[in-house]
């Protein structure tokens, strides 16, 4: 290989590389096929997020959710009685610029069983620590003034 062909090859490689980089970093990201599909991790924590209590009064259940969220320092953003949905948010310790938002749904499982599902999101990431949900359900149980044991639903 003589000097000039090597030079051309090197230059060509450089331009190609620059071109590839140019194209790559300028293209908008495309939605992944599983954008609207639940992830494996989510399916795992789903049971931790769900708890069933022996309750018959749906309104009392929603009021209990709101009261427990207030106990935990949340500000209620929306509450829908008909669909049994409560969303709330609060700033998180220690700097109070992180945000924790929580969505709680109440669903009548049978006539005397009420199922609660809570989803907490820290800034933009879902909270997957089971302890957080245990704490929430402990607060909820206190708010509902229940003496009986609650069982995690499967």
């Amino acid at each position, binding site marked *: 290989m003589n000097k000039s062909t090597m*030079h051309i090859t*090197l*230059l060509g*490689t*450089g*331009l190609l*590389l*620059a*071109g590839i*980089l*140019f194209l*790559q*970093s*300028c*293209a*908008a*990201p*495309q*939605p*992944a*096929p*599983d*954008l*609207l*599909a*639940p*992830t494996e991790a*989510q*399916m795992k924590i*789903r049971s931790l*997020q769900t708890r069933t209590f022996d309750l018959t009064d749906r309104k009392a259940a929603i009021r209990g959710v709101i009261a427990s969220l207030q106990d935990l320092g949340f500000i209620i953003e*929306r509450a*829908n009685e*008909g*669909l*049994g*949905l409560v*969303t709330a948010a609060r700033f998180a310790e220690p700097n109070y*610029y*992180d*945000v924790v*938002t929580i*969505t709680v*749904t109440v*669903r009548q499982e049978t006539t005397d069983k009420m199922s609660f*599902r809570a*989803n907490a*999101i820290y*800034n*933009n*990431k*879902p909270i997957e620590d089971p302890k957080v949900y245990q704490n929430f359900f402990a607060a909820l149980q206190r708010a509902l003034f229940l003496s009986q044991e609650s069982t995690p639903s499967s």
Partner: protein
Amino acid sequence: MSADRSLSSRMSLRMLLPTVLAGAALLTACSPYEMRHDNQSDARTQIWLSEESQVKIRAAQTRVFDTKDRRKLLQAIVMTLQDLNCKIDVLDEELGIVSAKKYVDLEQPTFFDPSYVLYRPDTLLFLTRTYRAWGPFYHRSDLVRLTITVRDRNESQLLVRASAQFYLRAVEDPVPYQQFFRTLEQAVFLEGHTVE
């Protein structure tokens, strides 16, 4: 030996040029966030933003369910959105609208970008006062938004339509919608049919 060394140093000098070129292209032309977005200079480009056929998109976004239980379907939709780690923003039973959002990490500030110096990276979009103005765009493109509507189709069927937004654009690929409806079908224990 010394001739060899001078040759190799000249070689590495030549190798430097393409590297610098590539680096410059990456830094100057491509790292700005704005380069990855269409510049919608007039209303026409916005109207024609959707490339796919509207009929095709609508068919992909819509499913018919053989139930009249609106509330049950809406509850199933909310449950599905919880499965997707979404936060419910709008919920109206009467109108049959559910809107939700979630964040997907897409934009990462790779280099120092002076236009972001005014914004703290650890605050979220909705906390800044310039929410709808020039602001922390990383979070704006990270936002995935969803609207699901439920309406009556006939005396025995309900029609569910989902539309999603990803990276500031409407999602036109049918696959994410298929995945969404698959999850919804599992939640509602019913099979959704496509509209003929």
